[in-house]
Every structure is written in structure tokens, then in C-alpha cells.
């Protein structure tokens, strides 16, 4: 089976697996909190137009948070990875902040940036930016010494070393970091969207739960699943475009 046909097949296997697990849970738990899968999928198709604003609200917040995290995290990660004194200065700070459960900062961001999107996006940035900084920093420190020696043989300037060595070398780490970031971003956004908003999948799911409409709640979960799935597939495409040298390894 070639690569092109293998991917949709893998996806199909995944979807069938998920469906079977859901069906099994519905059958064995036998409680209204787990609705019947086919009925829920039907309802999901029916409710989809009303879900679109929620999906786009969440998507907008995730993409903005990732964009801001990239703008902060990549240069900082490169700086920490490439400069010994920056590593000495900033790594302890990153290590201190990284393990803190940062969702606890939501009230702080709400007070600082108001109840709108800014506070929710800030929270997600605050959560994922450290992951990105560490991924990029590790990517830089893992570059083989012999590559630097080759750049010295070519009498490359610092800027040329940055462009021809550092930048391409950290792309795989950025992609891996992005995968982790998407997962964390969705999870933290779900939390953030429970407060002071009427749009977003987090709000939609918890609102359905509060009115004891479990089928609708599952439609929200399904939409969140779909959003995550599409974002991960987008990263796969991005990886194939940006890291073509890895595809045959």
C-alpha cells in the first residue's frame, strides 16, 4: 500500500476504532450520559450549522494563541539554545515557571485583559509558550557539532549559519512542539471557555451539560474531536511540506 492510500486508510481505521469504543461504552455503561453513537452523529449533522460559530471561535483563539506563542517562543528558544549566557540566565526561569499549573492564572488574565478573547488567548499562550521554548532550545542544542564544522569550512557568517543550519535544523522540533501545543491548547481553551463567553466549544459542551442535554454535549465533544483531528492533519501536511527529507526515513 503506498503512502497516499495508506493515510486515509489509517484514518478510517482510527474512526472505526473510536466508533467501536463509543458503542461499547454505550452498551456496557448503559447510562444517559453516554448517548447512542449513530443517533448522536445524526444529531451532530443536524446541529452542525449552529455549531459553526462555536468551532470558529475556538479555532480563532487556538490559532491566535499559537501564532503569538510562535512569535515569542521561537526567537526565545533560539536565543537560549544558541547563547550560553542566555541559557544560564533564562533556563532556570523557564524551569521554575514551566511546571506551575498555569490554568490557575485565568482570573489574573481576566483582570488584566478583560472578559473577552484576549484573556482566553493569553492563558493559552502562557500555557504553551514554555513548551515551544523548550522544544526549540533542545532542537538547537541537538544540532551535531560536525554541521557547525562544515559551516566553518565554508566560512559562513553567523547570519548564514542561522539561515542555512539553525533554521532548517529546528523545523522538525517546531513541528513536534506544535503537535504537543495543539493538544494542550485545546485542553486549556476548554477550561477558559467556561467563563465569560457565549461562544466556543468549551462553552457549548458545558452549557449542554448544565441543561442535562447529553446528546448535544456529545455533539460538542465530537466537534472538539473534529477540530483537533483537522489541526493534527494540517500539521502532518505542514510537516510533509517543510520536512521533506524525513519522509523516506
Amino acid at each position, binding site marked *: 500500500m503506498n503512502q497516499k492510500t495508506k493515510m486515509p486508510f489509517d484514518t478510517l481505521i482510527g474512526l472505526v476504532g473510536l466508533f467501536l469504543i463509543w458503542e461499547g461504552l454505550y452498551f456496557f455503561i448503559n447510562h444517559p450520559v453516554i448517548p447512542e453513537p449513530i443517533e448522536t452523529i445524526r444529531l451532530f449533522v443536524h446541529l452542525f450549522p449552529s455549531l459553526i460559530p462555536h468551532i470558529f471561535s475556538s479555532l480563532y483563539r487556538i490559532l491566535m494563541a499559537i501564532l503569538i506563542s510562535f512569535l515569542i517562543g521561537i526567537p526565545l528558544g533560539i536565543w537560549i539554545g544558541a547563547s550560553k549566557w542566555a541559557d544560564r540566565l533564562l533556563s532556570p526561569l523557564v524551569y521554575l515557571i514551566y511546571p506551575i499549573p498555569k490554568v490557575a492564572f485565568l482570573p489574573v488574565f481576566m483582570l488584566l485583559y478583560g472578559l473577552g478573547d484576549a484573556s482566553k488567548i493569553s492563558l493559552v499562550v502562557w500555557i504553551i509558550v514554555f513548551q515551544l521554548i523548550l522544544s526549540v532550545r533542545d532542537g538547537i542544542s541537538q544540532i*551535531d557539532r*560536525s*554541521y557547525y*564544522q*562544515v559551516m*566553518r*569550512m*565554508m*566560512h*559562513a557568517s553567523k547570519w*548564514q549559519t542561522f539561515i*542555512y*543550519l539553525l533554521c*532548517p*535544523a529546528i*523545523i522538525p522540533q517546531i513541528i513536534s512542539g506544535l503537535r504537543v501545543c495543539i493538544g494542550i491548547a485545546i485542553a486549556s481553551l476548554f477550561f477558559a471557555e467556561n467563563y465569560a463567553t457565549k461562544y466556543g466549544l468549551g462553552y457549548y459542551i458545558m452549557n449542554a451539560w448544565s441543561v442535562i442535554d447529553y446528546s448535544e454535549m456529545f455533539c460538542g465533544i465530537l466537534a472538539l474531536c473534529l477540530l483537533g483531528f483537522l489541526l493534527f492533519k494540517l500539521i502532518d501536511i505542514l510537516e510533509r511540506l517543510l*520536512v*521533506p*527529507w*524525513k519522509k*523516506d*526515513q
Partner: protein
Amino acid sequence: MIKNAVFVNNLTCSFTDKIVLDALSFVVPTNSTCVIIGPSGCGKTTLLHTLAGFIKPDSGVLRMNDEPVTDFPKRTGIILQDYALLPWCTVFDNVALGLKISHQNRTVIKEKTTALLNELGILDIAHYYPSQISGGQKQRTAIARSLNLEPEILLLDEATSALDAMTREQLQEMILALHQLKKTTLLQVTHSIEEAVFLGEQIIVMKKGGIHEIIQNPLVGIKAIRKKSIFYDMCLTVRESLESGTRG
């Protein structure tokens, strides 16, 4: 007067408290070939990396092409043990990178690189990534990358050690032919006695941290030398020198 491509006098190098190179002195005349051979851990690679400016020596005089070595010497190329081909560059881009860095014209880069790839027999794999090619092809690519810089001195760090016997011999012949064609001074580190005798007009036999013996080898460049008994006599001479160096 014969000029020296490499001039080393009283070169000493140590890591923490351990002396790795102890007062080494030798010269490599321009357009000649020199092979450094010795047991593992004797300091061969350290010596080559010191010549390349990757390691700063503690003391001594080190000149390449009559210029003191402070950074990587000008008009010099190096082929490292693992070739260090950039994985994200195709064969063509790896070879062309040096020209790109020296701001050469695009047409010149394309013409020069294509001609060199053709000369080394790797034009057909120009669009492949290093992960998609064999060890021998990687070696040719690394040689092409260095030659594209038009070096007067070429440093090779056990560059054929990871290859099978036949590929290794083919590449040794290619390296020698390129040296004769382009008049490049070769300085190679190896642990293979046959390679040393095949390529080195001057064979420097190292013992722990120092030079045990410098053997002059007149057999380099003789056609089909590997099939002649004098080749194996010279191999025996080098072997005996290596053994006495290890014992002493």
C-alpha cells in the same frame, strides 16, 4: 624551493590535564599527499581538527598555506568521518552550499556544481536527500562539497572507514586521481595500513600523543600498485612501525 602546505612545529595540545598532542613537528609539501596513521586514541583526529582550527593548541607553530591557523584555514576543505551532510539539503544543495555562502552567481553555482557532480559520478542522485543515498555516494557528495570550494589543501578524517572494501578502494582511487588532476595537497587520517600506503607519499606513524616515525613512500601513483608485491612490502614496513610505536 618547495613550499609547505602544512607546517607544524612543536605543537602541543591537551584536554583538561591530559596531553593529547605532545610537541609534534612535521611539514607537508604543497601538492603532495600525507597520511597520518596510528592506533585508536593516539590523537590523529585531534591533530586534524587542530589543523582545521576546530581545536586551539596550547603551544607551537601551526601554519597552513603559509598563514597561521586561527580559524578554519582559507583555501582548505575537510571531509569529516561521518561526512556531516546537511540532512535537509539535497545532494545538489549540499555541494552548492559553499558557493551560495560565498555569494556566487546563481548560474555559476548551477554550472559548477553540475559539472562537479558529473565528474564524481553522482549527478543522477543530485535531487536525493542524504538519507536516501548509500555510504559511498555520501562520501562522493562530501568530496564534491569540499572540491566545490576549490581547496588547495584537503583534510580527510577517516573518510572511507565506514565503507565496504570495494567501495573504499574505488574512492581511494578517485581521491588520488582528483589530487593528481587538481594539484590539491592531501592530508588524510586513517587507521588502514593499505590506505596509508596507497595514498600517502609521506606516512606519519603516530604513537600516543606523538610522532613515532615518518615514512617516505615512493609507490603512490604507480598503476595497479595494489597487485604488486612491493605494495605489500611497504604495508609490512608501516605495520612494523605501528607495532614498535605501540610497544615503545
